[in-house]
Structure formats: structure tokens, C-alpha cells
């Protein structure tokens, strides 16, 4: 028997982020809490010492103690926020454990069922469990893919968060943490905000280094950030600050004492390459810009007004190598690289789980008998604007025609057919045909019982059409008894058999048993 529910550890493995993210937040929160405590302790001790020293008069002492009290009160407020956050994330862990505990019980109950003894509710529970998993995957997708919609603002109103709340599964996903990463991602990619990234790098310096080691990355997010800053400053003509950045930050990455990176050489290459930009920026020459635009009439009029575009344009035309340095694509790459680091830091899955799982499930289901819906070559150029719901409407209107054909296969469905068209097929090694296959003279092979059932459910007068030459079908009179008897070819009471697919009529004697092996 196929196991339709995997053990708890398996699902725990898939849900690792549910148990990783909270502890990373707790750790970070705890570190900040320690800093807060240390600072306050030093401050209080200092003030107490001052009070004790006798160098102050009474009113000065009162002044100081009042100040200390108010500082302690502020500190307590901050402390409470930290404690609350700590407890919140602990309770998420507890809740998630309790959810898996339910799964564990369901698993045990299913195991007992196998050894005899019925569990009617188990099937429903199993359904509920998987339904919950699917919902969670969809929420995760909607949340994380929101950054690809440039017209969506990344906030608490995100569709993914709304769905999580309406399904009451918001405790199972750390959407607040994920959101934090998406917000910074968007700031970098859309608003080219480097300050937020520089701050973040500074705040997480230690952990970022660990991530770099763990994944053996040949890029350093901090270096990339400052390098991008350097390029941006050059693009707007602020050479002074660009050099400042280079002196204060970038050069540091070439120093083996400060950074034990193994990619010093690469960093060096990059800086040298970037340095060339300094020169082109200085050639910010209006006359030349106008001349260039005139020579290429179709060139954007924008460059009259926006020297950045001009610089950008000149350099990219003449020096293809620099194109990538100046292109906006670099912002996307930087934002992607940030998100990778952010996700690693908080144990958030890098990939969209729903995409991976759908791919795995699809190739497990995909057979060579699955439909190929892919349209003819001319319309199959991969234009995303072709995607609409029209197919569903077409399908609905002519579904009566072939409504008898049952095809519940997800791969054949409009939903997934095209999406899964390039995925591999499953590996089939066993013939798997319904019981009692019978063939009609036209080659269509049906399950015998279903063919009979279909024919029985037909209104009787259809058999008296011109096709049968007015022949009426004779039924056995005692239908009630018949329903308890097994129908066989020999006792079949129908004289004519209609092909459910195309309505062709055949004599009973034309039906033959076939033997797939």
C-alpha cells in the first residue's frame, strides 16, 4: 500500500523555516537586549558612584537621581518591548509544535487503521491536513512573489498576509520577518536606496561573515553595496564623495589584515574597472552630448536634460564592459543578493517551495497519455500577455459534449498543462488498465461495467432512432433483481450498445473482450 501521509520528521524537514526563523529572531532580539542591559547597568553604576562620591550637593543629587529614575523608566519600556517580542516568537514555536503534534497523532491513528479497526474521521483529517499545507504554500508564494509586481506596495496589506489571516494560518508563517526583507529588497531595487542596505549590513556584520563562509560565496554584500554606492556617486558626478567611499571602504577590502577574504583579487579587479568610470564622468561635456544626439536623431531627447543618461549611454555604447556596471540590472542583482543574505540569516527558504513541489508532483503525475494543450507554434511565443481565463469559458460551454470523458488529471487541466509542459514524464513500467476492458469495433476500449451503466442511463427512446431501424431495446422486466446480479457479457440485456464518445451504435455481439498484458 502506498503511504499517503509521511512521518512527522519528513514534514518537519519541509517546514524548517517555521522553526528556524523564530529562533534567529529570538537570538537577534536577545543580543539587542543584552546591549540594552549592559548600557543601562553601566549608566546606573556611574550615577550611583557619583552620588556616593560626595561631590554633589543635595539638589544636585536630587536632580541626578530623578534623571536616573526617568532613564530607568525609559529603559524598562524598551525592555518590555524586547520581552514581548521574545515571548511572541516562543509562542509561535509552541503553536507550530502543537500543529505537528496533531500530525503525529493522525499518523499513529492511520497506522492503527492499517492494522484493522476503522477511523472514519481520519480521512477527513488527512484532507484537512493537506489542505492546510496547500494553503500555506499559496500564502508563502503570494507573499514572496509580491516583489515582482512593481505596482504593489510592500506592507501589511499584502494579499498573502490577508489570505493568511482570513485562513487563520498567520501563526504558521513569520510574515512580519519576511516582509522586513521584502521591504528592503524593494527599497534597493525600485528606489535605489543604498543607505538602508548599508545600515543593514552594518547591523548584521558578524552574521553576514558567517553566511559568506557557510555558502562559500565569492561576493561580499558589504563590498557590493559600497561599490554600487561608488558607481552611483560617479553617475551623478559626485566624484569627491565617490573617492571618499573608495578610500574609506572599498580599499579596505584589498587589505588582507582587515578582511581575510579569498576574493581580494576579484575585488581589486572590480575597483580598478570601476575607477575608469571616474574619467568618463569628467567628460561631461554638453557640446559633445548635443553633437551625439544630433548624429543619432532617434536618440532620446531625454539626454538633453539628463546628463546621467548621456554618461550612461556614452559609456555603454563605447565600452560594452561597463554596461553591466551602470545598468539598472545591477540593482536587481544587488537586491537579489541582499535577499539571499537576508533569507540565509533568518532561515527563510530561498526558493519558492510551491514551485519546487509542483514540479516534483507534476513529473510524478505526468504520463505520455496526458494532453498536450500547447497551442500551435505561432501563438506559443512565450508572451505572458497571452495568459487569460478564456480557455475556462470555452471549456465550460462545450463540456456537455464530452462530459462523459472523465479526466481529472491535473496535468491535463488548463490550470497546469502549459506550465508543466517542459517537465519530465513519470517512469511507468507496469500496465495499468481498468478491469474488464472491452473493445467496440471502432477501436474504443471501455470498462465493461461503465459502458453498460452509461447505456442503461440513456433515455430508452434513443435506441429507436433511424440508426437502429426502429428497434426497441428489450429490458429484463425484473430490474430490481437485476441490480444485485453481476452483469456479464452473457446476461447483458441490452441488444444495442452506444459508444458514449461519439454515439455510434453497435450490436451487442460486436463487443469483444481484450487482453492487455
Amino acid at each position, binding site marked *: 500500500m502506498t503511504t499517503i501521509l509521511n*512521518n512527522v520528521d519528513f514534514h518537519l524537514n519541509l517546514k524548517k523555516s517555521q522553526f528556524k526563523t523564530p529562533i534567529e529572531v529570538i*537570538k537577534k532580539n536577545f543580543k539587542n*537586549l543584552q546591549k540594552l542591559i549592559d548600557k543601562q547597568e553601566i549608566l546606573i553604576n556611574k550615577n550611583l558612584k557619583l552620588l556616593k562620591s560626595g561631590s554633589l550637593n543635595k539638589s544636585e543629587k536630587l536632580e541626578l*537621581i530623578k534623571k536616573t529614575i526617568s532613564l530607568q523608566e525609559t529603559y524598562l519600556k524598551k525592555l518590555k518591548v524586547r520581552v514581548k517580542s521574545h515571548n511572541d516568537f516562543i509562542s509561535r514555536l*509552541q503553536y507550530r509544535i502543537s500543529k505537528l503534534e496533531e500530525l503525529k497523532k493522525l499518523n499513529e491513528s492511520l497506522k492503527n487503521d492499517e492494522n484493522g479497526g476503522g477511523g472514519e474521521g481520519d480521512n477527513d483529517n488527512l484532507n484537512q491536513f493537506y489542505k492546510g499545507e496547500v494553503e500555506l504554500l499559496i500564502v508563502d508564494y503570494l507573499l514572496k512573489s509580491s516583489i515582482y509586481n512593481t505596482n504593489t506596495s510592500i506592507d501589511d496589506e499584502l494579499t498573502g498576509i490577508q489570505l493568511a489571516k482570513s485562513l487563520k494560518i498567520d501563526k504558521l508563517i513569520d510574515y512580519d520577518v519576511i516582509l522586513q526583507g521584502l521591504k528592503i529588497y524593494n527599497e534597493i531595487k525600485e528606489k535605489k536606496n543604498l543607505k538602508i542596505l548599508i545600515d543593514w549590513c552594518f547591523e548584521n556584520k558578524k552574521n553576514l561573515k558567517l553566511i559568506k563562509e557557510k555558502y562559500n560565496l565569492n561576493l561580499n554584500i558589504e563590498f557590493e553595496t559600497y561599490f554600487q554606492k561608488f558607481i552611483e556617486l560617479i553617475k551623478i558626478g559626485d566624484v569627491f564623495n565617490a573617492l571618499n567611499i573608495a578610500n574609506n571602504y572599498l580599499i579596505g577590502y584589498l587589505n588582507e589584515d582587515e578582511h581575510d577574504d579569498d576574493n581580494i583579487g576579484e575585488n581589486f579587479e572590480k575597483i580598478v574597472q570601476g575607477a575608469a568610470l571616474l574619467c568618463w564622468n569628467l567628460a561631461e561635456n554638453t557640446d559633445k552630448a548635443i553633437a551625439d544626439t544630433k548624429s543619432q536623431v532617434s536618440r532620446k531627447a531625454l539626454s538633453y536634460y539628463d546628463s546621467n543618461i548621456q554618461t550612461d549611454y556614452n559609456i555603454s555604447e563605447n565600452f560594452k564592459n561597463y554596461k553591466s556596471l551602470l545598468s539598472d540590472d545591477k540593482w536587481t542583482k544587488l537586491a537579489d543578493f541582499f535577499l539571499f543574505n537576508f533569507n540565509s540569516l533568518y532561515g527563510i527558504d530561498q526558493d519558492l517551495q510551491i514551485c519546487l513541489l509542483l514540479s516534483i508532483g507534476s513529473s510524478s503525475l505526468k504520463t505520455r497519455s496526458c494532453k498536450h494543450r500547447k497551442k500551435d507554434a505561432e501563438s506559443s511565443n512565450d508572451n505572458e500577455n497571452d495568459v487569460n481565463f478564456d480557455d475556462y469559458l470555452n471549456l465550460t460551454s462545450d463540456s456537455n459534449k464530452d462530459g462523459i470523458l472523465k479526466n481529472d488529471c491535473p496535468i491535463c487541466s488548463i490550470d497546469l498543462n502549459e506550465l508543466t509542459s517542459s517537465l519530465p514524464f*513519470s517512469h511507468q513500467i507496469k500496465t495499468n488498465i481498468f478491469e474488464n476492458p472491452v473493445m467496440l469495433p471502432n477501436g474504443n476500449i471501455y470498462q465493461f461495467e461503465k459502458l453498460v451503466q452509461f447505456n442503461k442511463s440513456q433515455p430508452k427512446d434513443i435506441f429507436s432512432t433511424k440508426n437502429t431501424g426502429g428497434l426497441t431495446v428489450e429490458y429484463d422486466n425484473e430490474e430490481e433483481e437485476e441490480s444485485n446480479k453481476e452483469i456479464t457479457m452473457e446476461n447483458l440485456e441490452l441488444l444495442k450498445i452506444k459508444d458514449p464518445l461519439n454515439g455510434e451504435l453497435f450490436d451487442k455481439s460486436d463487443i469483444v473482450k481484450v487482453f492487455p498484458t
Partner: protein
Amino acid sequence: MSEHFDILTQEVEKLAANKSMDSILSSSNDILRQLKNLQKEIENSPTSIDDITSKIKKDNENILKHQKHLNKSVKNYSVKIDKMFDFNLSDVYPYETIDIKNNLKSRKLLERSIIMDLLRNGQFEIASKLEIERNLKIPFELITKFKKLNEILLNLRENNELNLAIDWASLNSSKLKKTGSDLEFNLHKLQFIKLYNKNKDDPFEAYNYAKENFPNFGLTHLDIISKLLFSMIYSTTTETNTTIDKNYINEMLLSNDSIYTQLCQDYCSLIGLSSNSPIYNTLLASYISLPNFIKYTKIFKNSGKLNWTSLNELPFEINLPIFLQFHSILICPVSKEETTFENPPMVLPCYHIISKDSLIKLSKNNLSSFKCPYCPVTSTSNQAIQSRFIDM
């Protein structure tokens, strides 16, 4: 297997039981209290602050102690959880995957099927938000259909009323029968049981209901009908022993979830969609087959012998449960290949079936007669009938 889960449960319990935060908070509160005491002392002039400072010192020591204590629990948890996970989803499937990051069309296709799943589940608000956000217009016609389904289901779930469902099923009675669904009967059955349970002393209403509705189903469900009616007779005549009555009725009672599911499935079938959400079924298949992928990856890693050789076919068989098998599969007994549209099954005069490619080979390009690989019958290729398996 739940050893990892058990370890994790313990660690979470330890973390939750760690009350260091409370102690830190209360010590910090105490410091505030001491500072206020100190203020009073100073106001009352003759001040000796040593006593208070030592109390504060104690508080601070306490805070430090609890910091360490908590730090230990957090660290323990981290260490344990980092050792726990033994597979990465992205490592077990080396094929091309659905890529929504670089392929805009795939993203839209996926989002369309997510919207379909949401519509099936009555999430209209979210769906219409996505419609704008992801720029995918949902036809009004489609929404209307799902709203109708949702109305029937809500009526069933929230009000425990069957009438809307029954109305819909009677309206679509012949279509339902055509697909072999017994939904209509099941609904009548539930309604009967409901009426019967409502007023056991006076089963007249239930009787009337039965008389009105059951005769149509005599052909198909006589057995159940007679049991239902029997239990009614039985309970009105004998008051003492009602075990049989209970057994019969309980045996018939479908869980709300299952009638709910059946209704959803039949409704979707009738509007031309697959009865279950394709996303749901595919993910279900994924969860079931994943252990195979994990196992294969492990074996491959250890032996280095296995390989993901064929690009467009998985290297191993996956046994999906029957409800996730959707197509008739014929493996040609000669070539051991799965038959396809291009290489269809051919029925020989002896009614054994082989693939077209094999037929051509056996008949030496349709030139000579050959013996069936399974029986002594000899035939020629033009005697074979091209066939197809039709799943109803």
C-alpha cells in the same frame, strides 16, 4: 519517525519554560524601586546609599545570571535544530523546475491556477485583489459559477441546510447520473435522516419525504432505501431495543466533510473542470512521491553509480495511490515502452494488445505475417485494430 520532532518539542518546551525574561524584568523593576527609595533617602537628608547600592548590585547580578541562563537555552535549541535537517528540497529534483522568477509566462500561468484554486475555495476577495495586483482579468461568468457553489456550500456548512444543494442536484439530475454520481441520492438520504432525527416520535415528515423522493432511486439504491425505511418502522414499533436502528442510521450518515467534498467535486465536474483542484492534487502527489526522490538522491550520492540519465523521464517508478492515477497505462509487452499518441496500442485478432512500433517490427514493416507474442495465433498487421483506452 518522529525522533527529530521529539527532540525539537523538548527544546521548545525548555525555551518556553525558561522564565529568565520574567526575572530580568522583575529585577529591572526592582532597580527602579530602589532608585525611588534612594530619592526619598536623599530628600530626607542624612543619606547612606550603601544599602541601596548593594541591593541594586544584587539585581544586576541576578539579571546577568538569567541572561546566561536564557542564552544557554537559545544556543541549545540552535545547535539541535541545525543538526536536524537531512534534505533540501532544491537538491532532490535536478530537473528544470517551474521558474517564475525569470519566466514571466510561467509566473502568470501559476498565478492563474492559484486564482482558480482560491475561487474553488470561495476566496473571492483575495482573488479579486490578485486580479488587479497580478493583472489577470477573471471573467464575471467564471466568478458567478463559483459564487453559486460557495452559496450552496455555505448554506450547508454554516446553516446545516441541505435545500440549496438538493435544488441544484435535482436541476442537474441527469447530468449527475451521466457521470455516475450518486450525490443526489446521498443528499436526499441525509435530508431524510435529518428529518427522522429531528422528530423520532413522529416520523411522518420523514416518511413523506421518503415517499416523495426515494422512488426515483429504486433502480440504483434500493438496498439503502429499504434499510432506511426499515429503521423507521423499527423504531416506531419497539421502544426498548434500538441498537439495530442506531446502527443502520449511523452507518448511513456521511460526515459533513465528505458530502461537502462530494458536492464540490461534482459541481466542478459539471462545469467542465477537474473535480479536485489541480494544484491540490499535484501537491498531494508531490508529498507522496517526495520520499522516493529523497531516497534516490541519497543512493546516488553514496554509490555514484546511479544517474539522472534520461532528461525527459524520471529514472524511477513512483507508486501513486489509485485516486492519483488518472490515465490508463499500457506498457507494450514487446518493447516495454509506454504507448503514446504517436505509438498507439494495436489490438491483434486474438485480442492481445501490442504497440504500433512493435507491430511494425514484428511484421517486418507490414510485409509478413507474425505470431502473437502471447498465443499461437498468427496474423498480419492490417488485421490489427488501432485502439484507445477511454476512461469514463
